[in-house]
């Protein structure tokens, strides 16, 4: 038996950093063995990969991969499935049909999906990717986005949120730049003491969900530039709320002044912003203020967020789609992607009102119960174009599509052949900055936070290592502070019951100093804990906000 080896390279699609991901494929007779390789010559990542990239072979060969269409959870033939869907679609008018899509689509897939929507004259098309980072797609005009060279040459970095967990590969250029000179500075704002805090010259441990307020406080300290951009009146309004902000966040004025001074005096720098599922009360405010801060700080400062999301926003918001389903206007939903509805259990139940519901997926997951489940190739088996932080990148299939799957364009061809029209969707929404709305929202957030100091807050926490639960089973662990553990007479590893308005769940207690008093942190990398966090609709954007939850904890005896 002869062995044939071949290295196949693609761009890693699991985040926006754009790493080169090579796989060594060895054929041994009819068997194929795949191993991850590390390409030292790769321009962006020099061979380095995070845990998600290392999971590529496991995702390709996962036993949970779906290999046949399902109708009401029973296997069905592709020909019957597609002809039935096509036939059933004819019974509904275009106003009763809705189409959704998520981030695991190439730009070519998205074009096919929009063509499909236009061909069917469907206007109810929405993004079914509901992660808080999508709020970064409300981009302010004039914001300068960081390139890799900006990070490498940077002298001062302000990180808001756990960027090392979102994009671990960013750590190398940031730390290299920080260590290059004794005067370089790294500042960090977060409500949990994460891995980034160990590297920061100053870590502002703010109260849960108050990160945007600290950004506003920083803006309030930069009088010259803030006045010229916002106007004297608006600036004095912000200045007035500064003491209130610092009191709400439990941060001393000296700490804010230290960061403000360094940000204003050191020339080159980058502002990083990241949000986790169930960690931010007002992601819109977070996104707008982080971008505004990058405009207001004097000197050459750029902005970098892990999801200046490359996927279009659609014609309506997902919350509007839910409303339309509740009102009975939308009767059919066709979803293209890999995440929805499994990763959003809170909204999945709303789909019961649909007459029929078709979704594509790569994994067999018992939590989702759409009528039709169609297996598609995973993003690692597709070719096409994806977006990265540094622009467009091509992906190549690392393996043949899993047996029994059909591509999105094949599915669309069979359901709705002979589509003619073609139009592209807008990728980001430029927003004009409205300072009154921002101040109102900030005051709301202050009000909301002032009265809740003694309640137990549940925060979501994500890490690259927890991706799809492949490398860890930490999903059953929750983090709790020593003070709260003492109150409940808890020991490390004790079983606890977490009770929220929605649900009761049993966890293993992990007593740690990385969460403040009255805060519980649970991992939200896999769908199972996501049900703890209720979804609210944001009044301005009509997007879903997945805010920290309230609840209480009991020791399980």
């Amino acid at each position: 038996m002869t062995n044939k080896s071949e290295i196949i390279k693609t761009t890693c699609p699991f985040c926006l950093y754009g790493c080169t991901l090579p796989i060594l494929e060895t054929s041994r007779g009819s068997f194929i063995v795949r191993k991850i390789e590390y390409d030292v010559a790769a321009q962006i990542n020099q061979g380095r990969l995070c845990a998600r990239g290392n999971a590529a072979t496991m995702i390709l060969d996962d036993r949970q991969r779906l290999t046949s269409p399902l109708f009401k959870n029973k296997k069905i033939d592709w020909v019957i499935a597609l002809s039935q869907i096509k036939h059933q679609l004819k019974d509904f008018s275009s106003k009763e049909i809705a189409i959704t899509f998520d981030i695991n689509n190439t730009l070519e897939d998205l074009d096919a999906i929009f063509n499909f929507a236009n061909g069917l004259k469907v206007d109810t098309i929405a993004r079914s990717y509901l992660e808080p980072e999508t709020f970064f797609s409300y981009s302010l005009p004039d914001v300068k986005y960081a390139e890799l060279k900006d990070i490498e040459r940077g002298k001062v970095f302000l990180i808001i949120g756990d960027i090392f967990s979102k994009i671990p590969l960013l750590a190398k250029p940031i730390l290299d730049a920080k260590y290059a000179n004794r005067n370089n500075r790294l500042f960090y704002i977060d409500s949990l003491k994460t891995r980034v805090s160990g590297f920061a010259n100053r870590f502002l441990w703010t109260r849960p969900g108050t990160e945007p307020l600290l950004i506003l406080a920083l803006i309030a300290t930069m009088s010259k530039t803030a006045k010229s951009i916002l106007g004297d009146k608006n600036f004095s309004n912000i200045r007035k709320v500064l003491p209130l902000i610092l009191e709400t966040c439990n941060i001393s004025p000296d700490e804010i002044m230290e960061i403000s001074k360094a940000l204003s005096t050191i020339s080159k720098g980058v502002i990083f912003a990241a949000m986790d599922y169930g960690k931010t009360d007002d992601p819109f405010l977070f996104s707008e203020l982080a971008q505004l801060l990058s405009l207001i700080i004097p000197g050459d400062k750029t902005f970098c967020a892990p999801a200046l999301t490359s996927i279009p926003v659609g014609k309506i918001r997902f919350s509007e789609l839910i409303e339309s389903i509740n009102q009975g206007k939308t009767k059919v939903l066709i979803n293209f992607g890999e995440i929805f509805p499994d990763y959003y259990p809170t909204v999945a139940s709303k789909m019961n009102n649909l007459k029929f519901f078709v979704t594509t997926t790569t994994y067999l997951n018992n939590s989702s119960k759409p009528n039709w489940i169609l297996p598609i190739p995973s993003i690692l088996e597709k070719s096409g174009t994806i977006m990265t932080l540094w622009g467009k990148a091509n992906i190549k299939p690392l393996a043949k599509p899993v047996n029994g799957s059909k591509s999105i364009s094949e599915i669309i061809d069979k359901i709705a052949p002979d589509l003619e029209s073609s139009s592209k969707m807008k990728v980001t929404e430029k927003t004009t900055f409205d300072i009154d709305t921002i101040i109102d929202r900030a005051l709301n957030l202050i009000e909301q936070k002032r009265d809740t100091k003694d309640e137990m807050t549940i925060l979501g926490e994500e890490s690259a290592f927890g991706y799809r639960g492949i490398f860890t089973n930490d999903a059953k662990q929750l983090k709790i502070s020593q003070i709260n553990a003492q109150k409940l007479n808890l020991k490390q590893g004790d079983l606890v019951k977490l009770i929220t308005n929605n649900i009761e769940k049993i966890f293993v207690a992990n007593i740690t100093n990385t969460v403040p008093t009255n805060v519980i942190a649970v991992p939200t990398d896999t769908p199972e804990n996501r049900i703890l966090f209720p979804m609210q609709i944001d009044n301005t954007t009509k997007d879903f906000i997945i805010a920290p939850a309230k609840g209480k904890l009991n020791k399980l005896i």
Partner: protein
Amino acid sequence: MEENQKYIFLDLDYCIGCRSCEAACRSAFSESRIRYGNITETVYMPVACRHCEEPLCAAACPFEVLKVTEQGLVLQASFHCVGCKSCILACPFGVLDKSLLNHVSQKCSECKDREEGPRCVASCASGALKFITKNEAKKTIVSQRFLSRSPFWRRT
């Protein structure tokens, strides 16, 4: 022991605890052979086999499955391992995992099957793991900024 034999070194100034090394090892060998722990709650420390000059794991092995090679590496002939866990108990650094995979203990081989060197080092997202000789290690700044505990370099 050969002078040009390379070993895995850790630079604590760069380790962000992303566990990419562990993931790389696990994706290649089904079970990770590099352990992961932390010094403080924000300072992480992956621990790989030190390939001791007088390895206690090899001394404890009743079937001489673990041997020191001429290059100074401690390698395991997995085929002869009976899964008695003696090596696991003997390792003074706790690097060998308690669990067995297919009744065989899991021992780091510095990725002998890969010419370019260990996968954990190649994969290290922040560049904290280095694959260098002992002489090179003496000349390289490793974890000095961490050890200095100076706020100008790093807060711990």
